[in-house]
């Protein structure tokens, strides 16, 4: 403990410059955020100059920006960005030594989700190599992918091994100056995933962060970049239905997708971070910027998300439909229970001709939670014959929660067409009684009805993920009725 403190002190007293990485032993950057910390992170990762400069530009921009609290329907105390650590190397010794030391409540949840035993240890943060070794699985996959020329590695590794691709595409969809949290991420991101699918290659398996989880923990400022070259296809899964142990309260990730001519990217997320307790104490703040560019003709990007965790979710996975005939899709289920707050939706920016977008959003509120759909559909002057269809359904459980729908539609092309449907309903006593009269208990009945409500979205998830997601919906709503 004292040695840690000494190191922290030693670090705060020093000036960091690029290239001094070799003489730095510390695993921490001291608390707070300033240019030195950013230099430290960049040096730790042995980054090239352009990367450091990009981070510094982002930092300078961030200093001039404001927290988006004023426009989102969210309530949270002011975050003190100087009272946080921005770099810590993974410390395995901090985790519990075995499952015996893990919170029994967490284990109970794993049980209900049917998470395999070995998996539980990893999720609970037990030092993984001590328990089992999943590296072999990861290596098998890597071999297969390499044969096809697919690049799938951590962002840090990609900066070293494929700097030309990273430099070309990083920030090309979400610029470093984009918004408060994305800009912060650009300055301090520690790691994330990088994917490149070469021309004409159809990635034969779902790529998942799971396969590289044993590599360094990505931490709270994750950065993901996926590029699908002409005529390629990839399906990417992010997250996990099981709750992950995490001490960081603030998460500000950035995901950028680029689809070139005739390429398709499917991006699925299941987010189940700690939502705080039933009184609204604790929980993760999740401020994410996700955006895909359908840059090529006839390209397609689909976002599917199931958001059940986090105390606060602020997230608008978007599509920029640049290429003619390109398609953007957004399928979302957001559940809020107890005191959770979610302000989530999408942006569909139609630029090219005949571009089409589809939005299906299902919001479920229970307890004292607030759930807001916020979506923008914009047609630019050249988006001739562009189409959008939006369907926004809210389901309320109990009478203390709120559901809000805030669509923004802007059209600057008279041939564009937009349709917006919205419904708000309650789980009716009729439906519950009907199901319970057939033998289901109240929680099973609620789960069944909610899964029915979310069906259109869940069926877009890869099969196994969908099954897990259904169980997750049920668990998230436990105790919400009666």
């Amino acid at each position: 403990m004292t040695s840690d403190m000494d190191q922290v002190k030693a670090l705060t007293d020093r000036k960091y410059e690029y290239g001094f990485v070799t003489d730095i032993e510390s695993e921490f950057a001291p608390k707070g955020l300033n240019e030195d910390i950013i230099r430290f992170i960049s040096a730790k990762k042995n980054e090239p100059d352009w990367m450091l400069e990009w981070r510094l530009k982002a930092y300078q921009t961030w200093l001039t920006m404001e927290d988006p609290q004023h426009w989102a329907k969210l309530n949270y105390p002011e975050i003190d960005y100087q009272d946080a650590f921005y770099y810590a190397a993974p410390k395995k010794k901090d985790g519990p030594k075995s499952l015996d030391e893990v919170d029994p409540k967490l284990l109970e949840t794993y049980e209900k989700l049917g998470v395999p035993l070995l998996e539980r240890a990893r999720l609970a943060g037990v030092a993984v190599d001590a328990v089992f070794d999943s590296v072999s699985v990861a290596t098998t996959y890597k071999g297969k992918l390499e044969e096809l020329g697919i690049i799938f590695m951590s962002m840090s590794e990609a900066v070293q091994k494929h700097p030309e691709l990273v430099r070309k595409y990083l920030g090309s969809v979400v610029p470093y100056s984009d918004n408060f949290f994305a800009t912060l991420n650009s300055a301090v991101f520690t790691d994330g995933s990088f994917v490149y699918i070469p021309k004409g290659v159809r990635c034969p398996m779902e790529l998942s962060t799971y396969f590289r989880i044993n590599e360094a923990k990505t931490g709270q400022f994750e950065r993901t970049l996926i590029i699908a070259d002409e005529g390629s296809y990839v399906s990417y899964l992010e997250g996990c239905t099981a709750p992950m142990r995490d001490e960081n309260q603030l998460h500000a990730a950035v995901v950028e997708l680029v689809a070139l001519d005739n390429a398709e990217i499917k991006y699925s997320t299941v987010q189940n971070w700690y939502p705080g307790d039933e009184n609204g104490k604790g929980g993760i703040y999740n401020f994410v910027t996700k955006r895909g560019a359908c840059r090529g003709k006839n390209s397609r990007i689909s976002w599917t998300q199931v958001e059940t965790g986090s105390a606060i979710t602020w997230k608008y996975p978007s599509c920029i439909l640049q290429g003619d005939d390109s398609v953007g899709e957004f399928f979302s289920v957001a559940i809020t229970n107890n005191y959770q707050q979610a302000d989530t939706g999408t942006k569909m920016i139609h630029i090219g001709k005949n571009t089409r977008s589809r939005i299906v959003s299902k919001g479920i509120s229970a307890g004292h939670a607030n759930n807001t759909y916020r979506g923008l559909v914009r047609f630019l002057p050249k988006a001739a014959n562009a189409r959008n269809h939006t369907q926004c359904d809210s389901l309320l459980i109990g009478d203390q929660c709120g559901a809000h729908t805030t669509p923004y539609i802007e059209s600057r092309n008279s041939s564009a067409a937009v349709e917006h449907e919205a419904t708000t309903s309650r789980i009716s006593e009729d439906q519950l009684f009907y199901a319970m009269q057939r033998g289901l208990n109240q929680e099973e009945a609620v789960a069944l009805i909610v899964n029915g409500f979310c069906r259109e979205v869940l069926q877009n998830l890869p099969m196994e993920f969908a099954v897990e997601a259904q169980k997750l919906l049920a668990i998230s709503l436990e105790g919400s009725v009666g």
Partner: protein
Amino acid sequence: MSATPMLEIKGLRAEIDGKEILKGVDLVIPTGEVHAIMGPNGSGKSTLSYVLTGREGYEVTGGEVTYKGKDLLAMKTEERACEGVFLAFQYPVEIPGVTGVNFLKTAVNAVRRYHGRPELDAMQFMKLARAKAKELGVSEDMLKRAVNTGFSGGEKKRYDALQAALLDPSLMILDETDSGLDVDALRIVAEGVDRMRGPERSMLVITHYQRILDYIVPDRVHVLVGGRIVESGDQTLARELEKTGYAQFQGKAA
């Protein structure tokens, strides 16, 4: 079989929103018998079916109900269902997004779990469901559609009958199953129900009109007026009522 009746109701009183609807109902249904309850609107017929099945909002203020020798009123809604009490709804409820098959499978497995029997997997269940569905004229297409969503009146009742066939209840309560059915649909549904008669199963057929009783001929007929059973008899009572109406009993109930 045994001397214990399937259902024994003694002095049952119940209210909804503080208004007393059942004012002391007495009724015994022996195992294997079919009883009909007839009565005018507002006499408490539906209330009786909801009290027996444990619907929220129906408060029992007096009396007791014994089902297969057990205290029915002490059981939770889903326990009653799992113990074999089945209510065929007057107006089956729509559950959007939940397929007919999924709903049936979830229900069948909930009951199996309750009895400590292994759950059926999708394949086993489909085999069972297909066979029964065919018998009752429920199409594959109906099973794939969301529960009762966009079903015609006849389809809803047939789907309800399919649920009964799969859940194999001991006590079936039919709450005005004839509502919303044309003559042909009524015949199909009623014949389906009648085929379920057996020495181990009792039925309580709640109805407004006697026409359903042409297909499901009851062992006993009771007249419910003003929250009490005011008259009991055999099936000829039902025919009589069809001619004379309920007016003659209104005085009795007061």
